[in-house]
């Protein structure tokens, strides 16, 4: 038995913690950070499979690099949106943004 399932379990734990943070945290910055955590959990999966998967190869690592790039872009845009919103509403509390109801 390889260590694969241990890595996957760790990834699941981190993913769920990230998910919990996304749902419950009111501060938009922490929500963004939690999303990063979830993406990291995914990366961990990719890399674990790249080593222990049935066809071990570097493709998983390549994919995780792409993911990181997209995550960085997402963080940048997210913070930009956040700052723009903050200028309008003077708050970063997610539960005060209820435009979806209107």
């Amino acid at each position: 038995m390889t260590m694969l399932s241990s890595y996957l379990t760790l990834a699941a734990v981190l993913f769920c913690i990230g998910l919990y943070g996304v749902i419950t945290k009111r501060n938009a910055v922490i929500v963004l950070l939690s999303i990063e955590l979830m993406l990291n959990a995914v990366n961990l999966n990719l890399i674990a499979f790249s080593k222990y998967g049935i066809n071990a190869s570097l493709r998983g690592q390549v994919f995780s690099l792409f993911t990181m790039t997209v995550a960085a872009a997402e963080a940048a845009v997210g913070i930009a949106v956040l700052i723009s919103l903050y200028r309008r509403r003077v708050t970063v509390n997610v539960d005060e943004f209820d435009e979806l109801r209107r």
Partner: protein
Amino acid sequence: MDIVFSQYAWFAPLFPLAAFAVLTAMGRGLRTTGAWVATIASLLSFVLSLLIAIERLGDSAEDYTGRIEWLRAGSIVLHAGYEVTNLTALMLIIVTLVALLVNIYSLGYMKDDERISVFFGYVALFTASMLGLVLADNLLTLYICWELVGVCSFLLIGFWFRKPEARAAAKKAFIVTRIGDLGLLIAILLLYWNMPNHELDFTSFYNVFHSQSGLISTSLTTLIALLIFLGAVGKSGQFPLHVWLPDAMEGPTPISALIHAATMVAAGVYLVVRTFDIFAASDAALTTVAVVGAFTAIFAASVGLAQNDIKRILAYSTVSQLGYMMLALGAGSTTAGMFHLFTHAFFKALLFLAAGSVIHAVHTQDIREMGGLGRRMKITAWTFGIGALALSGIPPFAGFWSKDAVLAAALDDSPWLFAVGLAAAFFTALYMARLFFLVFMGKARGDARAYAHAKESPLVMTLPLLVLAVFSVAAGFVETPWNEWLGSWLTDGEEKGSFSSMVVISSIGASLLGLYLGWLFYGRTSAGRNPVAERLPWLTRLLERKYYVDELYELAFVRPLAKLGRGLSRFDEAVVDGAVRLVGSSVQAAGKLNTRLQSGQVQAYALYGVLGAVILILAIAGRRFW
């Protein structure tokens, strides 16, 4: 002889029905005109019935049946039709004549009533349904009309619905007769299942039951006959369902005469006669009819002895006389039963209308407050006297002949039934003597001013009395020991009357004894003291309370049922309504929850997404665990 008028027999119920429609549509605007419309309609019906009867007097008159297909559902066909036989023609005459006279009488009696057109509309509807009942050629049509007359009875008893007693009486009548109607309905259903081809018309009954073809087993026949008899018991006020009839006297007096003396209550007797082939096939059923009839006759007659309301006395008398008819039928003689129905319709209608005339004059129904009215109201007194003599069975009045026929039939069947009938005849004479002497003879006991104002009723009210008095005298001669015309006409000569001098003598003796005792107790001592009541107070009390039958029913049925009803109502409110409210409020709560869900907050939506995904995964992938 050609059949002309019988073909148009269905017009007879149509006239009053049209009158009812007109009166209902035109409403109160008509008032007296409406009353005349109804009266003329009943006159037309009477003329038609008379023509039919004359036509049927010919010896060779064929029975005429007209029927149409009413409902067709798959292979099931229900017919509606009418049938004209000698029996039907006789009933037509009785019903239309009494209805006509009551209509005329009501022109005077109900003159000042606010809702006179409604009253005449109801009477017309009743006449129509009663004629439909008489003419019906099958049990189903009969049953429909049977229920219609019940409704009219309900409406008319409760005509003065502002009186709580009238309301209660109407409800009681409707509910008590319903017990009998249920029996009749079950009988019809049983017949429907067991008759060949699901036929329900009376001719088929004759074919099946009269020939003893064995198509239907004896026990089933008995059951059907008893259930039909249950219907008759309810409608005709036989023991133990008699309790509604005396209370029904809360209605206007013409109604008491028409519905609750002459016609509708006789419908039960008519029903038994009409389905007599079924009864004749079962000895047990016949015995039951005879015993119930005899018991009702003596029971009601004895109660009538102690009542003080003029109409109630007559009502108990009606119950008792209906018992007589049932007794005759149970003894196997339809002739005697129908004969008594025929004569009774006239003299009891006469008695009721005369009583109405009295009530109209003195505005009370309590005979203890009357007295001496004979001097003020000569026509009423004389006609009432004729009616009383006819009811008591004094020759040569009509009641004597029919009562003799009944008693003779009873003697043929069993001496016990004869003895009971004789005793009932004695009681009948006694209470009629009491009634007559207390009301018309002696000194005025009530309010002196009311007595002074009491005067004879107008001609529209006395004319029907006179006509009925003539019939009360003469109607008996259609069937006498030396002339059995009615019997042979009704039954094609199948039934022979059996008169014996013993019956005649004992019957006259009982009647005269009753009249004499009545004069002794109530006529001679005009003060109205009651020697029997003084000697046997417990007996009088028992009779006054009508053997506590009402109280017994109250205790045994009404209260438990009322309790059950209240319980069910509470169940309805709590559980059924609660369930309805629960559905409503749960939908509302679901709606509120949904608005709460639509909070507009992204995180909440994310949460729903997660929960939904979990549920979805569990539902799809988790299936293998259960």
